[in-house]
């Protein structure tokens, strides 16, 4: 017991420090937790115990669910063609190029190179959304389209992570069948359940969501897949229900951010070896370029086909080149399953952090649509 509390003090101290730095600098706590985790992991021996692993895993699961639950289904329906095309290209192009660069240029094993492809195929809806709010674009058709495309992009990443390493045995098909059942039934059942329990102080809604996530994650892992896949899918189908229950989202967020995600991001950061990164700066640069160049080569022509103006097209391309949460989840999955080495993991996490920051800065500094450009898409699509 003594060790448990001692380790707890260390981890929670780091979580609090990250929270205070985030509050002071106005930067997301997730990014700060990663950086604090990197600093701690490279300064002293941070004990990653079973309970830390459990909290971190649940953190990743609930975070993925919340990401899915933030889908604006009306926006995806409105811009389904553009969001589907941009989202699929935004996923497939960097997935392919990063995989190729890792395997052919740097000699990574096939599966390790695929993890590089998956980790760098992502975008970040939340990072993009924060920028949109800052610039006021979140309420414009352009902003909504970019966000919808980011959702589709991340769905591609989650599906790839959930399916690429499975053996497609009987247990997998049981998982698929029950996930489909959940996706169909939950949107019908959940509103009635929420209405029935009516925000009781014993938090039945939060426990209900956790039960669904744990059950589907169990089935996913048993079937050789990954728990984040059903978590994202269930989040997406429950998005409209959650949209009308903002209080529930708040309570889930409070639970998740206070107790779960700090362990996830601190752990993800602590496993990064700075020595390995410093010895592989060329690989870091090459993989960063692979992601951003692939996004550019894929998304820019697609945007041009949709008649985006040059500035809007560059802005969209850069926004969709961001990445954070799913990038680290994919890399950590690879490390946990011994698909990638600690060195490869360290490289990927650093590249993911860079992709959260650099494309955002460039987009905001040089390509932020101004004046009439902010409504250009609306006009270009004939009032759609």
């Amino acid at each position, binding site marked *: 017991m003594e060790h448990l509390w001692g380790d707890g003090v260390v981890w929670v101290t780091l979580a609090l420090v990250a929270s205070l730095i985030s509050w002071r600098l106005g930067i*997301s706590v*997730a990014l700060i937790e990663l950086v604090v985790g990197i600093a701690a992991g490279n300064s002293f021996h941070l004990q990653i115990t079973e309970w830390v692993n459990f909290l971190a895993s649940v953190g990743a699961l609930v975070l993925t669910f919340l990401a899915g639950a933030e889908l604006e289904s009306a926006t995806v329906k409105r811009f389904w063609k553009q969001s589907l095309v941009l989202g699929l290209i935004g996923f497939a192009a960097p997935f392919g190029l990063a995989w190729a660069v890792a395997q052919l240029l740097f000699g990574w094993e096939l599966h390790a190179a695929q993890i590089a492809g998956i980790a760098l195929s992502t975008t970040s809806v939340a990072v993009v*959304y*924060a920028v949109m709010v*800052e610039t*006021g674009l979140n309420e414009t058709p352009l902003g909504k389209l970019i966000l919808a495309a980011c959702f589709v992009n991340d769905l591609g990443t989650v599906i790839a992570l959930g399916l690429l390493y499975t053996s497609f045995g009987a247990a997998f098909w049981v998982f698929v069948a029950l996930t489909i059942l959940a996706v169909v039934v939950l949107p019908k059942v959940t509103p009635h359940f929420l209405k029935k329990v009516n925000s009781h102080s014993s938090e039945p809604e939060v426990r209900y969501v956790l039960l669904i996530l744990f059950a589907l994650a169990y089935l996913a892992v048993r079937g050789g897949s990954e728990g984040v896949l059903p978590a994202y899918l269930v989040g997406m189908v429950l998005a409209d229900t959650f949209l009308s229950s903002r209080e529930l989202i708040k309570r889930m*967020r409070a639970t998740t951010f206070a107790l779960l995600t700090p362990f996830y991001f601190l752990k993800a950061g602590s496993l990064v070896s700075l020595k390995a990164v410093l010895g592989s700066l060329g690989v870091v640069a090459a993989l960063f370029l692979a992601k951003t160049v692939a996004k550019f080569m894929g998304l820019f022509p697609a945007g041009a086909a949709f008649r985006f103006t040059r500035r809007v097209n560059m802005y969209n391309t850069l926004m969709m080149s961001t990445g*954070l949460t799913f990038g680290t989840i994919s890399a950590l999955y690879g490390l946990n399953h011994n698909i990638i080495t600690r060195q490869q993991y360290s490289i990927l996490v650093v590249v993911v952090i860079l992709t959260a920051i650099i494309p955002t800065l460039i987009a905001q500094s040089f390509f932020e649509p101004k004046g009439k450009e902010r409504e250009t898409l609306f006009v270009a699509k004939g009032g759609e």
Partner: protein
Amino acid sequence: MYKKIVLAYDGSEGATMALHRTAELASGGAGVLVLAVGRIPEYAETVSEVEEAKEQAGRHYDRAVGEAAEALRAKGIPASGHVDFGKPADVIIRHAEEIGADLIVLGTNPHSALKRRVLGATVDKVVDHAHCSVLVVRLTETHAST
């Protein structure tokens, strides 16, 4: 003399000084937009994290901005209040451009050199990049202590 003024306001002592100065400048018939800028987390983890930060900042600034606008209206100055989110300098400049302001007024509170360097200075950015004149109302130590 001025027609449209943007007053960057956060309810601090420096901002209150700027409010008084704005009232003097606008008494010639200018309209005033009282603007507060709430910070939201950069590189966010979830959309709801951003939404929650917006709500908190909105709650914090709505009242301050409303009271400042009301104080100006009580002096016969047409004024409206608005709370927006993002990097303060960028948001102030954007709103000034959008309404075609011919003056931006900011209050400033004394910061240590280190804090100014680490956190960046909103005033510096607005002065450098605004399309119109900028008036920086400095909170002197005498005022700060009163």
